[in-house]
């Protein structure tokens, strides 16, 4: 669903199917809560990169496990959606399994591991390698929505700084990195400017994934449950990683090819294979990797 169809009328028609849980509403949250969250989402889409406070609910999964992403997904999910859930790029990590089960159980929606087939993808720490297409929604789980939280712990103060677009503090931090280390030392949760206005945390994705945020065809929604904030990047929005003219942004990846599918352009996991320090490198995006391996075997 794109944001122009996200109205209360079209999205409150959720009804139960026979094989799902009947003790709770479709996708667990009650309809009033979903409506409240969709209103926050609409505001977030209208002001790209701006953190919208919302009445985050307590979920049956713990804070830190993706309660913000789960609430966003629950609020936009319809019966015809196809859901993919990844954690660290993988569909089979325990938390991804647990969240996918949660929605299979409470909403009975179809699930998939194929990026291209999903209408909604909930993610923790990665953006899929396969480019997203129009109509897809990527839902990020966000632990710390405030990009300046490590520089200024007071939210009252950072809120004022966002209002004034006063982002010198972050530039000074990056500059200090360069003077101390010769380069910017932030490798994940790398701050971005959205639509030339708001400084935003892309959530703890590796900086490697930052360029995928830029002018993505998909709608990107960010949910922070514990911190009670929602923000968004509408499709085709400019998202620029902070840098300097003489120190341009660089995406970091391990300089190897995947040991399984031989792709030398993807983000890699470093896997320790014995107790003598032997390493192998494999794609973090398990769907991308298995699809490539299957194609190579078929050929």
């Amino acid at each position: 669903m794109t944001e122009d169809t996200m109205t209360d009328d079209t999205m409150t028609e959720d009804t139960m199917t026979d094989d799902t849980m009947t003790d709770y509403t479709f996708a667990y949250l009650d309809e009033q809560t979903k409506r409240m969250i969709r209103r926050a989402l609409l505001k977030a889409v209208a002001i790209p990169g701006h953190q919208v406070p919302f009445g985050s609910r307590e979920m049956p999964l713990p804070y830190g496990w993706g309660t913000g992403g789960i609430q966003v997904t629950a609020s936009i999910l319809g019966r015809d959606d196809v859901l993919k859930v990844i954690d660290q790029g993988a569909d089979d990590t325990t938390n991804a399994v647990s969240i996918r089960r949660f929605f299979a159980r409470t909403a009975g929606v179809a699930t998939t591991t194929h990026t291209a087939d999903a209408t909604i993808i909930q993610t923790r720490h990665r953006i899929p390698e396969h480019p997203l297409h129009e109509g897809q929604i990527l839902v990020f789980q966000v632990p710390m929505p405030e990009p300046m939280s490590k520089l200024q712990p007071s939210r009252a103060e950072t809120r004022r700084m966002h209002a004034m677009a006063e982002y010198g503090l972050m530039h000074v931090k990056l500059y200090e990195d360069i003077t101390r280390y010769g380069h910017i030392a932030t490798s994940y949760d790398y701050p971005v400017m959205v639509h030339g206005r708001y400084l935003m945390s892309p959530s703890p994705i590796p900086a490697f994934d930052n360029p995928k945020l830029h002018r993505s065809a998909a709608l990107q929604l960010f949910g922070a449950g514990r911190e009670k904030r929602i923000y968004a990047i509408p499709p085709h929005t400019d998202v620029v990683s902070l840098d300097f003219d003489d120190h341009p942004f660089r995406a970091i990846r391990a300089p190897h090819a995947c040991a399984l599918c031989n792709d030398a352009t993807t983000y890699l996991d470093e896997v320790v294979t014995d107790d003598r320090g032997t390493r192998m490198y494999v794609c973090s995006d398990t769907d991308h990797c298995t699809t490539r391996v299957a194609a190579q075997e078929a050929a």
Partner: protein
Amino acid sequence: MAYVAVKGGERAIDASHAWLASARRGDPALPAIDAAQVQAQLGRAVDRVMAEGACYDRELAARAILQAQGDLIEAAFLLRAFRTTLPRFGHSRPVDTAAMRLQRRVSAIFKDMPGGQLLGPTYDYTHRLLDPTLSEAPPAPPEADAAPGDTPPVFAILNHEGLVEPDPAPSAAAPADLTREPLAFPAGRDTRLQALARGDEGFLLALGYSTQRGWGGTHPFVGELRVGEAAVWLEPPELGFPIDIGDLVLTECQMVNQFAGSKTAPPQFTRGYGLCFGHGERKAMGMALVDRALRAEELGEATGAPAQDIEFVLYHSDNVEATGFVEHLKLPHYVDFQSELETIRRMRADVEAAPLQEAAE
């Protein structure tokens, strides 16, 4: 190839849950504990779970404690996750704690007062000696004295002279509810008190203690501490008159604190307020100390101690939020760690290359 893609998350989760269930039950040769026994014999645990779970239901709290193997924060979380599914249909009238059916009432600032001191069931004067006769039948409880009569709040006595700040005027506005609207700053006292009432007992205890040790001192006296049952009155708009919907056991603490006065207020005693579900004196007292400390700015006092920082206290008092974010560090973070590895390797390469470069120059 030595590497096998990590599969089997679902099987691992199922197996883990089965193991957990068996660990929770413990030795099957021993009889299982019933939730009713927990309710009856672990009353203080039930009280704490109701307070931090922000849901007054003794039976559900007892079941949560059993399900959580006695992990009280986990039990409070179970209760919260249930509470959040309940519809919110209104708010009660302020509970009239002056009309409580008292189990206990002590004041540290007067030797005696109207209604008298009532020691009640307290550990205060027990000797902490492990009791080998614990499982034997206890002595019969003492006969209750004749009803103590009127037990007006102690601060009302001071109030006659204007020596203590009066209750704030009742507000017509609906009280804030941070379970529905996110925290915003400056946070009003209603929001603050709600956060503290739901807050972690250990956190409030430590912060309250820190004010006694000089980190934002408030010169506190226990004006009154009372434990008892209070009626909850609700006025449904369609009825137009209030109805008594039940009784709650509550612990209330009124701290009386020194105050030097300001340009707008004469020297007088100020108050810190603590209230929690069940019998929780430590919680109510910690809360009252912290409530008063959080008023430092409003009263024009010096600030800067942790207990006086509203944002710091309110953002960190909730143990369900805190345990979630601390424990989420157990979740996989290898994608981010991988990018840190590459960055550290690059930094080390730079450092190793640097001396050679200097020598060459």
